[in-house]
């Protein structure tokens, strides 16, 4: 029964789920505050942006790419939304600007990486610098603050006391991503490109278009995340998005999406995001200063990759043993 369930949702996801439950039990026993509805709401709310950015990065990692500038795309889109709100634009229209700006920036990043034939990590480090300066320039050295609460009223309201309304959009986004990845030619092409780019090209996949499209999906999702960022915080500070890339990459990798491409797990990404935000919240509650957060996340990322490599190596050894046993028999 359990084995069947594991097959259905995947061993990695079950392991993660167990880790989430275990972490919750540990923190709950250390602090009575942890399971208070307000804190549960805080964890879920703080996961909002990362859920969407992680989802987008899942597409990018699936093609064997990476993007360390996602936090900056979120920042630029947030500034656009904020300025539109300040100018008195209808909140629904302002919310729409987020994904549009994100889509445009994603298209730009994708074009530079793919047509420029630059390794994604190098290109997005360069773009990270360019986008960060853009944020500084757009903000002009001060915070964007005192934004109207119109978006908060729409997206930060609570369902059942612990879930923000923004999660309606997030669930729809994950469902749509699932359909796209598993039921459309684009999804098939995406994974094919990640698995073996040359073979995909030879079988007639428009590799370059698919790769650029992955960055566009990611950009658009960063833009939607920016809408929720504004709804949650109602200001944009200079350092916006500076830790987002590490958190998102760690979440996606924890979730079982391969950094080499060709493999994507949406449920894994969602659980990875939840685990990371829960650990950050829990460690803060038990008294670890928030400066430790990048250390914890970084260690978690390296640990996940190490265990993954160890598991793969173990599998190969076992296979090798089987082959050797057959030969001697």
């Amino acid at each position: 029964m359990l084995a069947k369930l594991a097959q259905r949702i995947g061993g990695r996801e079950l392991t993660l789920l167990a880790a989430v439950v275990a972490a919750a039990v540990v923190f709950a026993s250390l602090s009575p505050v942890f399971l208070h509805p307000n804190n549960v709401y805080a964890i879920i709310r703080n996961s909002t942006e990362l859920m969407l950015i992680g989802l987008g990065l899942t597409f990018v990692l699936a093609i064997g790419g990476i993007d360390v500038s996602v936090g900056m795309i979120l920042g630029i889109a947030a500034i656009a939304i904020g300025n539109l709100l300040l100018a008195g634009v209808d909140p629904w229209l302002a919310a729409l600007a987020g994904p549009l700006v994100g889509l445009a920036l994603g298209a730009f990043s994708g074009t530079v990486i793919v047509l420029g034939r630059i390794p994604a990590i190098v290109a997005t480090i360069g773009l990270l610098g360019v986008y960060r300066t853009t944020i500084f320039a757009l903000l002009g050295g001060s915070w964007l603050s005192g934004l109207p609460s119109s978006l908060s009223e729409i997206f930060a309201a609570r369902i059942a006391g612990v879930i923000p309304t923004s999660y309606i959009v997030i669930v729809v986004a994950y469902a749509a991503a699932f359909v796209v990845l598993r039921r459309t030619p684009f999804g098939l092409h995406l994974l094919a490109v990640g698995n073996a780019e040359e073979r995909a090209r030879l079988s007639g996949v428009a590799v370059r278009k698919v790769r650029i499209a992955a960055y566009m999906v990611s950009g658009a999702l960063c833009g939607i995340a920016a809408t929720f960022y504004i709804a949650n915080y109602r200001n944009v500070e200079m350092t916006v998005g500076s830790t987002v890339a590490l958190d998102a990459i760690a979440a996606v990798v924890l979730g079982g999406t391969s950094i080499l491409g060709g493999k994507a797990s949406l449920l894994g990404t969602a659980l990875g995001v939840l685990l990371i935000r829960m650990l950050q919240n829990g460690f803060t509650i038990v008294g670890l200063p928030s400066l430790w957060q990048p250390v914890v996340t970084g260690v978690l990322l390296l640990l996940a990759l190490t265990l993954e490599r160890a598991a793969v190596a173990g599998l190969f050894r076992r296979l090798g043993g089987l082959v050797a046993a057959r030969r001697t028999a």
Partner: protein
Amino acid sequence: MMAATTSTTAKLVLLLVLFAGILASFALYEPRFLQPSLASTVLQFASMLALVALGQTLIVLAGGAGIDLSVGGMVSLSAILTMMAMSAGVPEAVFPLVPVVIGALLGAVNGVLVTKIRILPLIATLGTLFVFGGLAMALTGGASLSGVPQWLVPFGRGNLGGVPWHVLVLVVPAYLAVAGMLTFTPWGRWFYAMGHNERAARLVGIDVDRIRFLAYVLSGALSGLAALVSLAWFGSGRPNIGQNLELESLAAVLLGGVAIFGGAGGVLGVLVAVLMIVTLKTGLQFINVSAVWQVGIVGALLLLVLLVDLIPIRRRS
């Protein structure tokens, strides 16, 4: 294999033209920029980047998608741990060695992750960037640690005929040593061979993993030297001193003509590129352009140099 890109010499010439162009435009905009102390200022600010970029050069040269994103984290953490070791009672006499040893150990962590556990360099060093940089901030709460021995400060601020001591004593010998190693020793041949074609290098018996591990250790040790320069210069350990060094060192290495996929390039170009980047930053500061523009301009430079690479490829195919 990718088609050969612009030759190293052509790139160096291009770089020098760009450098001259930058100097000329600043001089035209503000003639006072070209004062005699300019060279001294640039060298003072270039020292740390030059050391870090040298390590980055070795790692990129050795191929295998080699990249060290953690250099800034290693510089910050080496500086902080050195100051903590001092307050824990390590004798002052060995002070200059401490950051180098710590840096080499941090580099060895990267080396193990990449060559033993076989995690992709970009993701392994991205992880350690946040672990090392985060530790430097977390251990200090973001505050500087003072207590650098007084006798070290002249080394960080003084100069001989306008050339800072740390450039004479650390940067010049380090570049000469690496240039010599790359040009005249078998090790150098191995670096280029494995960067050019790793499979072939393995087949002829080059111990690729050992050399790559060494490259990460060297990058760490050089980051430690950069930390030493910062300690002697500022008289204190700053937990964010290494910020943006991953971007700047990559920009210097690629501007300097090292092929991003490894196997081609040399240290002379990298040194010129370091001087150019620092001159550009100094010039921007001189004409009162806010420091926040620097990271964007360096980022744009990094992208441009890689896009320029495309032109000859297109013409050939």
